[in-house]
């Protein structure tokens, strides 16, 4: 029983990181019907920014309380990564908006390569480690909960709540939903569609940057290629949950994390990815638009 609880906890923590990244995929898809393949690398850029901020903090002040360091890392990473994402959208996606559907997809793959190679050139191809920041652990009847896991779960829940509020209760959220349903009509009604799309990219990137910061805090290393696998997993999570659906992305992220953890826990670690993707295939056979996806959404 403790073993099960422990593995569920491990799976949920992993799933929380996937969910944060998956939101970026699903939001962008929801609003412009495009899969932003560069999103995994945006996540990696966020993690790298957090790492650099941490190193600057340590070299300036020698010893920084972990909470302060994490807060500064998260905020700076969110801002800079959002800026990157805005720039990418402006340069690589907006000019192609009227073009055929595959064009932005190709540029997204191009941007993905540009970002990972840029980081490789600037930061070198090796893994960049940071020293362990927080190492407290708590034990509840045989289940070990680390403070890192608490931070990840708390930050993710808080962000998801904030995010839910933004999308459902604010003017910005209403504009977003309007653009999602019918961009032409939204524009006619006085909504600045380009600006709303930019904001969507910014929000997705900020969430990915938080995931990147959590990643570097939890695992302690990052390299230029760190964005690829989490990016693919998060994309899978978004598809599993129903791409375009915000609740779906969160559910999908948690599910992928749990499937990986429980499969490795009771079967073999070798085949955890096989298990996750097999379940994805089975779900898509029976529910082609994912668990919470809306089948009736029609994109032009």
């Amino acid at each position, binding site marked *: 029983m403790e073993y099960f609880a422990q593995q569920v906890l*491990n799976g949920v*923590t992993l799933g929380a990181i996937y969910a944060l990244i998956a939101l970026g995929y699903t939001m962008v898809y929801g609003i412009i019907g495009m899969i932003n393949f560069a999103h995994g690398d945006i996540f990696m850029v966020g993690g790298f920014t957090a790492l650099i901020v941490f190193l600057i903090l340590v070299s300036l002040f020698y010893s920084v309380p972990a909470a302060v360091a994490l807060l500064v890392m998260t905020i700076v990473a969110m801002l800079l990564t959002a800026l990157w994402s805005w720039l990418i959208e402006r340069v690589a996606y907006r000019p192609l908006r009227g073009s055929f559907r595959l064009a932005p997809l190709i540029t997204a793959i191009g941007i993905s390569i540009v970002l990972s190679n840029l980081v490789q050139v600037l930061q070198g191809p090796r*893994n960049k480690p940071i020293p362990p920041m927080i190492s407290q652990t708590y034990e509840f009847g045989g289940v070990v909960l680390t403070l890192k896991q608490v931070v990840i779960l708390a930050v993710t829940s808080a962000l998801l709540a904030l995010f839910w509020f933004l999308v459902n209760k604010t003017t910005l959220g209403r504009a977003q939903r309007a653009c999602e349903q019918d961009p032409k009509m939204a524009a006619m009604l006085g909504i600045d569609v380009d600006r709303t799309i930019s904001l969507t990219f910014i929000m997705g990137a900020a969430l990915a940057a938080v995931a990147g910061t959590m990643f570097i805090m939890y695992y*302690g290393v990052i390299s230029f290629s760190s964005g690829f696998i989490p990016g693919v997993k998060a994309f899978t999570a978004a598809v599993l949950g129903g791409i375009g659906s915000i609740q779906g992305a969160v559910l999908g992220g948690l599910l992928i994390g749990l499937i990986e953890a429980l499969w490795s826990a009771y079967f073999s670690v070798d085949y955890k990815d096989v298990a996750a993707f097999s379940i994805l295939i089975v779900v898509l056979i029976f529910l082609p638009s994912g668990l919470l996806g809306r089948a009736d959404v029609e994109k032009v």
Partner: protein
Amino acid sequence: MRKRLVPAMAVAALAAFTAGAHADVIIGVGAPITGPNAAFGAQILRGAQQAVDDINAAGGVNGEKLKIAVGDDVSDPKQGISVANKFIADGVKFVVGHYNSGVSIPVSEVLAENGVLEISPASTNPRYTERGLWNTFRMCGRDDQQGIVAGAYLTEHFKDAKIAVVHDKTPYGQGVADETKKALNGAGVHEVMYEGINPGDVDFSVLIAKMKDAGVTVVYYGGLHTEAGLILRQLADQGLKATMMSDDGTVSTEISSIAGDAIDGFTFTFPPDPRNREAAKGAVETFRKAGFEPEAYTLYSYASVQVIAEAAKAANSLDPATVAEEIKKHGIFKTVLGDRSFNEKGDTTNPDYVVYRWKKGEDGKYNYNQLP
């Protein structure tokens, strides 16, 4: 290919004939004399040269003097092949080389077809001697021989512990892990867990919880330093106090920055420094007197020439095929690396790996040292 080889062989036969007339035995040294691995090439050349000088000073082999011919492979397989063809044309019968496994492997095929014996002081890839060629030998260890050493160490120190064997599913990592497992099982020790991870994975929390559940206290990992460092770090995070052991793929100072304090006590297998061996004393002094520090592969190269010379003497022949047979069945050779013998494949049967352990030094920094 065949067509081109015929004239090459004709030339080789002619050259061999003339070389015989000169009463010199030419030993070809094929190594990266220039290029990124030039430092190792210099060691190999220097080692072979010194061995030849010493053997000649002691009267040569079967009444004939040894002579060196140098071929620069620049660590490039294509260059290696042209070096081999040049050696063959020059009447070389024995080659000491090459440095890179990637060069040694293709070159050995050309040499085998032309009746030349090759002994590599540095190529550790198992494939080099695994293709059933008659002419391939190596002085250094094999990647998979580490498993034997690691298995023996674990059996000796953790006979009753619960051991987990983990690998990264690559030919290298899984190869080393499987060999260790084999050695453990052979000694009657059975692992409680055998798992493969993906290279590039970062989350090992599930694996570690699994180990915890199985009561694992010793982890053997076959793979490279990044994942090893992460596993160490997460073992500490999860509060699992286990001893971890790994292979020479983890030898990098980067692992200590990934693992942090968790590196303390991490053990791994790696070749020992041959300069510290008793048998190498005289040779090391000679090198130092000449102003050359016999690092890394120098002594391996020296020993390669010794093995050829000793086998030729014992077989009373300078025919490469006869010498090759002799090396395989000769038993112990007294070399600067200590006592060495060879098996049917041409590998040295004295696994050349020892155990090192990471420990905090007095300056507060972590470093690794060979265990006594």
